[in-house]
């Protein structure tokens, strides 16, 4: 058994290393695709620095005491009941440090959650959570929710890059939580209640076909890449000897031509001409919502504005069941959810 244990130790060290050495992220933090997410990471790192200092100070003192004040023959402990100066010092200094963390946190919180961006000038998407799917809805050409031209999707959120997107969230059954890890966004979906989040995605997800690894790129970088928009499949992962799953993309069976985007122009090319594949981000449910909770996965497809506009025009109609679902759980119950904020 102990040999096996060592193997697990080794495996987990391997799991650790790429995280610690991560270029953009810190430690195990996954890559980040929003400006607001970068600010959260920055705050996290600032607190981390302070906490490490406090950790070293306190645990160091503990070890020091254990070593230098261990029992020795003939020694007597100091009979000391306390010291008011010390009490004041170690109340005031931590209070100042905590006050600093509070100051940083409250200004970022105000920016993220209290100052709402205007719904008039930004893209608004509605999100209806249910056991165990994410439903999304766009207002369609008339710009009004709850009308027949609305565009609906399931488990796939399309958004344009470099734009602020406001997501209006509710649930039709139990509480769920919309979690978009790369954006550092999380917001519960509560039945009967409308909650809102916004995010400003400025990185696009692509899959490097040469390395078979995901990458995050800016719009400028993306424009210089040959990215296949379709015609590739993410294959079932293969479990490697370290217990990790190896993911890879391959052209769909029998496909001859795939749409490849370069510099905003889309051309049909043979699959081997593409260097990258558009790779959506993952979203998850973070609030226990029933037996299917672990599989309540969705995706965020980040597109150029032109591709997004085009998608919105041609998105398939999901049919009457979905229209009815939205109508029953959202429009007829809470018509006020569809109204933009002033």
């Amino acid at each position, binding site marked *: 058994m102990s040999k096996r244990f060592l193997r697990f130790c080794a495996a*987990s060290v391997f*799991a650790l290393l*790429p*995280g610690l050495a991560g270029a953009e992220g810190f430690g195990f*933090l*996954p890559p980040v695709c929003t400006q607001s997410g970068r*600010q*959260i990471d920055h705050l996290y790192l600032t607190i981390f620095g302070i*906490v490490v200092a406090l950790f070293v100070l306190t*645990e160091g003192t*503990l070890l020091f*005491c*254990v070593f230098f*004040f261990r029992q020795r023959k003939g*020694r*007597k*402990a100091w*009979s*000391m*009941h*306390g*010291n008011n100066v*010390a009490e004041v010092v*170690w109340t005031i200094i*931590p209070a100042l440090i*905590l006050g600093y*963390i*509070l100051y940083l*946190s*409250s200004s*970022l*919180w105000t920016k993220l*959650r*209290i100052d709402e961006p205007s719904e008039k000038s930004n893209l608004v998407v509605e999100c209806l959570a249910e*056991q165990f799917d994410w439903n999304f809805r766009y207002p369609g050409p008339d710009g009004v929710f709850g009308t027949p031209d609305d565009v609906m999707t399931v488990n796939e959120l399309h958004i344009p890059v470099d734009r602020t997107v406001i997501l209006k969230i509710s649930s*039709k*059954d*139990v*509480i769920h939580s919309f*979690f978009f*890890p790369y954006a550092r*966004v*999380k917001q*519960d979906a*509560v*039945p*009967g*209640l409308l909650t809102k989040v916004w995010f400003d995605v400025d990185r696009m997800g692509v899959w490097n076909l040469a390395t078979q690894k995901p990458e995050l790129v800016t719009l400028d970088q993306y424009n210089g890449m040959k990215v296949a928009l379709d015609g590739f499949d993410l294959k079932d*992962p293969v479990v490697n000897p370290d217990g*990790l*799953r190896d*993911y890879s993309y391959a052209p769909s069976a029998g496909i001859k031509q795939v749409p490849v985007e370069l510099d905003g122009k889309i051309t049909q090319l043979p699959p081997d001409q593409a260097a990258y594949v558009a790779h959506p981000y993952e979203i998850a449910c*973070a*609030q*226990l919502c029933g*037996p*299917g*909770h*672990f599989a309540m996965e969705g995706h965020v497809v980040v597109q150029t504005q032109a591709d997004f506009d085009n998608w919105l025009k041609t998105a398939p109609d999901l049919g009457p069941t979905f229209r009815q679902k939205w109508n029953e759980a959202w429009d007829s*119950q809470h018509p006020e959810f569809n109204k933009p904020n002033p």
Partner: protein
Amino acid sequence: MSEQTISGTTAEAPHAGGGGHHHPQPTSFFRRYVWSYDHKVVGKQYLITSLCFMLLGGGLAMLLRWQIAYPFVPVPFIGHWLKGMFFFGNNGAITPEGYLELGAMHGLVMIFFVVIPLIVGGFGNFLIPLHIGAEDVSFPMLNALSYWLYAAASVPMLLSFFVDKGAAAAGWTNYPPLSDIAGASPSSLGLTLVLVAIYLAGFSSILGGVNFLVTIAKLRAPGMTWGRLPLLTWAQFITAVFQCLATPMLAAGASMLIFDRVFHTSFFLPSGLMVGGAAAANSGGGYPLLWQHIFWFYAHPAVYILILPTMGIASEILTTFSRKPVFGYKAMVISLASIMGLGFIVWGHHMFVSGMNPMLGMAFMVSTIFIALPSGVKVFNWLGTLWGGNIRFDSPMLFALGFISMFIIGGLSGIFMASTPADIYLHDTYYIIAHFHYIVFGATIFAVFGGISFWFPKFFGRMMNEPLAKLHWLLTLVFFNLTFFPMHFLGEAGHMRRLATSTDYEFLNSLAGLNVFITWSAYYLGLSQLIFVFNFFHSMFYGKKATENPWQGNTLEWTLPSPVPYYNFDVPPVVYRGPYEYSSEEAGDKDWISQSTPPVPGMTPAKH
């Protein structure tokens, strides 16, 4: 009654145990060990029952970890026996429903049936009367009732495992609507039974709290002023305030949820709820976040119920083995009291992304950040206690040192989550799991182990086996950290909690190895506890006979024989000085002096 003679009167009130007269010790087995009014027996009943439940709770955790490391792989041995029963599917693997059941019941058992009864019911009952120099608690019958309510609560809890669709499976927090509508949640009758169990356990906890408040306020021996109370008793006093003021909220919430489930009211169900394709029958007019407010208004104070008494235990042990007075007694009491004050206004930090108004989130962030302050002050004072000591490293001390260092880690991770923007990301991930296990296991359970070996002589009249206790400490410390420290990494990587498997997510892919590592560490951690189980029962019968005061302590329990006799104090004690006069001038050649040793003529006892 006629035999109203021997007992003295205290400064403030007559002795307990029936208003100032001694009854002889009951001779029947039933009155002596089952329906006993003796606080020591009640304490031991609590201690042993809750330790048994700890084995149950721990066993559930072992199964949880199997599923996380080896999702949907049949569980060796156990899964084979129990195919198709409890949490297992027909192939002997844990089902997603079973996983949720394991998770919810692990949390509920550990909190309501292990830690609270263990540190309040067990240590509190046994030690408070001894610490204050009383014969018993103020209401001995209420005390017995409180234990038996707790025992009764375990019946529906245990029964729930056997009913159709199993026990509770909506998290230990039971958020509605998941916990509320039959069609939405995986469990049915089981969850109602568990709510009844929580209700009863809460009731038991309130009775215990009332009893402690009155006992500490009224039954202190002459000379035992508030400023001379041992810190453990102070901590129990403040915990009792929490129990009396917060637990009724749990009762209210549980009643509402039971009403929703059984009588189809809709306290927590808004209008127009659709489960699957159909409208939920009794939905209308309720508010799901109401439950979260009620629950956390109780459960945040409850997490302090889980730690305050053990802060007291740690203080007692640290001072005794440093041979030095507690540093900053007053600061310790003030910080306990401010934790209590602030503890009532921080509950919203569990709800930062729940949909609660973000302005409220801001307010809760302020209070939460500042609750770290008294916790910090306590840490600094513990370090001050060690500073300049003459430290002995017996097993209780090793556990108390473990307590401080694990508490530091758990407290520091709390700061990240108290910062609302960081908590947007960390909420509902393994970061939370790491945080509270550092506190509830790393700190609380460590102090419990330390406390058991410290007061074992008083409990059972014998010493625990020292080498075994030290081995247990070492293995527990190592495997505890190997199990729970990497959970910070999981949380940092965004790994959600309460997830039957993470294999659906590509962004969690690289964590599979880490999860396997954690699982094996957890198994070694679990196995290490068997050393304790053996040592506990073996020492109870075969341990070395203990002397009166094996650790040279000052507080009143160390003036009594080991084990403590039926009426505790033959002669009612008189207290002359504070509890921590180690190495004082008055102590002379020894480095300790008992609270009840009369002062040497010509020498004034220290004021403290």
